[in-house]
């Protein structure tokens, strides 16, 4: 089971990060977005090729108002 932002997802193992983001309706060219998988940053350039493992924990973060 792949976890995205703390929630179980329907994503199949082996799916690329880019495909996963597309399912989440996150535009790949969107500014101010960063992704970590299993506690490591995955640079934007690797999103199209980065394959998610069966138990991947994906964090998709974006800019939010904050002090």
């Amino acid at each position, binding site marked *: 089971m792949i976890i995205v932002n703390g929630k179980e997802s329907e994503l199949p193992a082996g799916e690329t990060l880019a495909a996963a983001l597309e399912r989440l309706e996150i535009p790949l060219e969107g500014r101010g977005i*960063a992704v970590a998988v299993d506690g490591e940053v995955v640079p934007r350039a690797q999103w199209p090729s980065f394959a998610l493992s069966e138990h991947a924990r994906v964090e998709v973060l974006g800019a939010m108002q904050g002090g």
Partner: protein
Amino acid sequence: MADAISKRSPGAAGALAHNGAGPAGDPLTLAGRTLHSRLIMGSGGFASLTLLAEAIAAGGSEVVTVALRRIEPGARGSLIDVLAEAGVELLPNTAGCHTARDAVLTARLAREAFASDWIKLEVIGDEDTLLPDAPELLRAAEELIDEGFLVLPYTTDDPVLARRLVDLGCAAVMPLGAPIGSGMGIRNPYNIALLREAVEVPVVLDAGIGTASDAALAMELGCDAVMVASAISRAQDPVRMAAAMRAAVHAGRLARTAGRIPRRLYASPSTQDEGLPDLR
């Protein structure tokens, strides 16, 4: 206050008034960038993005902080768009991090998200006071500096800790005046004055500002800039308060570079006695 007994001249924080008297003030070099506004604004707490944009315009800030949080499906980067439209530099923070490890990872994510090496490093050690966790802060700062970040740590008003952070290579220090969001002003102005003298990098008073006079005091104590978040965003009229902060920061900076008179217990006449008529 402490400025009267300062070991250094008031000019320690920058050049004197000949280039500081203009309406825009004297520029500040902060972590490699030249700024003409010494008011840094937080983007948090505004009721709407429109209000945020209006407050930024009224405050004249060139640097605005942003946080990173999980995004919801379908979310769009409207905050980023608003800040880009305002033409401000983003200062990403690590708000909400409680360990060096979390803060370092958040900083790396911020670098990826915002293509900026700036990071306002916050490592919180206590939920009720949101005071910084000094050992974790030092650990995170060291690691991030190794990775090439320009680190601006949110720290206590402890001059020794500030020096340790600068020794590690921090680009500036951001001491608190009082706990985040407390609006208590600068509770220990003497420590801020000491801290100012303890380090050579820019000092940005962060946290605790409640109203304009607090911001002016920070600048009079020698801080190079003031960071204001809640005091603007949670004011009854945030746009008006942003304008007040802008004026206060400017006035405080002018007063600092003008060099205030020393405090004295007894009166000192400003009108000379010579030529006083005999009216008996």
